[in-house]
């Protein structure tokens, strides 16, 4: 096996955070991020689940070279996921740079990551290539423009598996056709609080849009974050799929805003109290679980947007959602921690980050 370039050093990522967390962009009070991923396969190899390790290694070599020579993205740093330990793989999952499946599967595989963490290209996930573009706020069109360019650039030197009838051919028939999954990550605390969220789910499922939790398929909806994405990939163009999302998402945003407004109107004091208590616990707890942290941060995030909390900014909250998760906490502390120790470390980290009115460093 030839190593053309050194792997990206994971430690550099532990002290930074992705551009998509910066909390700017259109409607960023509710839309945390927009994401598009494309599934692609090379024509001359079996799909990764069916490929043996030597074939996967060959696929990785061919594609790593392509990914590293991409110019439209800026230089991507490459990480061989196979050679990472479990903690580091989990870290990349928490960071939204690889999927849980990519972390858990076996054999030669990797990921190319952009310096702003807006781009990640997984090699040998379920498909040979899973290209992902992530942006702060509500900006699906920009995501599509970016990823379309990356796709074109990669395709200049390889032949994708494609049929005129079924489009881009993928390992799972649920992804064939465009191979696209466009999604927006929404923060919907008011709809959850009032249980109106069930209506949203039903309406979305009826028009075959999927709702998932923070970490995609099968993950729990933590911190009132929901990913809304297309399910259909065949028989509709990329533009049609994105348009469909764009028709629906503004309605959900408006719905959440309406309910927030109503909550404030009904009982501003109670809401103010709830949000302030949440902030207080985060600032002073001595031990705290990941679940409680997500729940309280969600309250605080809404509180900031409603002007009920001062002394903390949205990007800080966004970052804390990610940095207080188990693998991040352990990477920040440079040690392996048991669950109870993590709760203590998490509380200490939160106290330190939320102690004074400091602009967050990045």
């Amino acid at each position, binding site marked *: 096996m030839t190593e053309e370039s050194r792997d990206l050093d994971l430690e550099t990522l532990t002290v930074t955070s992705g551009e998509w967390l910066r909390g700017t962009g259109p409607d960023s009070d509710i839309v945390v991020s927009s994401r598009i991923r494309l599934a692609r396969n090379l024509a*001359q190899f*079996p799909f990764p689940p*069916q490929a043996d390790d030597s074939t996967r290694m060959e696929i990785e070599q061919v594609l790593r070279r392509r990914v590293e020579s991409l110019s439209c993205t800026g230089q991507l740093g490459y990480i061989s996921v196979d050679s990472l330990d479990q903690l580091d793989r989990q870290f990349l999952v928490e960071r939204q740079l690889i999927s849980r499946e990519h972390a858990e599967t076996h054999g030669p595989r990797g990921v190319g990551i952009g310096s702003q963490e807006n781009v990640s290209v997984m090699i040998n996930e379920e498909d040979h290539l899973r290209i992902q573009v992530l942006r702060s706020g509500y900006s699906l069109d920009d995501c599509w423009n970016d990823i379309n360019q990356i796709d074109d650039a990669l395709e200049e030197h*390889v032949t994708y598996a*494609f049929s005129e009838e079924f489009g881009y051919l993928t390992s799972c028939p*649920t992804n064939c056709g465009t191979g696209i999954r466009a999604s927006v990550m929404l923060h919907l605390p008011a709809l959850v609080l009032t249980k109106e969220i069930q209506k949203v789910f039903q309406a979305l499922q009826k028009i075959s849009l999927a709702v998932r939790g923070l970490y995609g398929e099968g993950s729990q909806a933590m911190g009132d974050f929901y990913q809304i994405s297309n399910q259909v990939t065949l028989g509709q163009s990329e533009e049609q799929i994105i348009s469909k999302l764009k028709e629906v998402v503004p309605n959900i945003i408006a719905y959440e805003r309406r309910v927030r407004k109503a909550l404030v109107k009904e009982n501003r004091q109670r809401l103010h109290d709830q949000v302030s208590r949440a902030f207080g616990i985060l600032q002073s707890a001595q031990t705290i679980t990941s679940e409680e942290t997500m729940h309280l941060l969600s309250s605080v995030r809404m509180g900031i947007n409603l002007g009920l909390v001062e002394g903390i900014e949205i990007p800080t909250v966004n970052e804390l959602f990610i940095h207080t998760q188990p693998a991040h906490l352990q990477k920040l502390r440079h040690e392996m921690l048991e669950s109870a120790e993590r709760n203590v470390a998490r509380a200490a980290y939160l106290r330190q980050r939320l102690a004074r009115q400091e602009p967050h460093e990045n």
Partner: protein
Amino acid sequence: MRKCRRCTKPATLHITEIRDGQVQALHLCESCAQDYLSNVDVGETVEEEDVAFGTQADEDVDEVFEGADDLKCENCGITFKQFRSQGRLGCPNDYIVFRERLLPLLESIHGETQHVGKCPRHTPDASRKQYELIRLRNDLRSAVESESYEDAARLRDEIQALENQLGIESGEE
């Protein structure tokens, strides 16, 4: 038109669920679908519903795939039965070999069976020719395993020739 799995009304909603790699199709009428969906929380499955629907959904899948189990792709070696159990296809050529069996499945997942949208600049024809490489490499592997070195040498040349002809990069330096 299909009938709803729960009552006799026509099925207007077609739900495809993938659980543990198993593809399950579910056809429901408007009101039964409402009932079903309202019991499904995001990101998790409802165990009781699972049990109640499990057998019916299985029957449904059987109906679609009847008699197709032994069909095999010579390129990657996967059978349709294997695809059914793992929920993943083996190689691009499977879409040709299993086409007839995949059509109803694709119809129920996507509601459509014809791609519209972006096309790669390379022609689909070039893509199809390359599937041949998957078969040749598989044959090469078995030839090496069974120590048929003459065959192996011949296959290696064929692979090289086809790669050159198609102008693609191999993984080797």
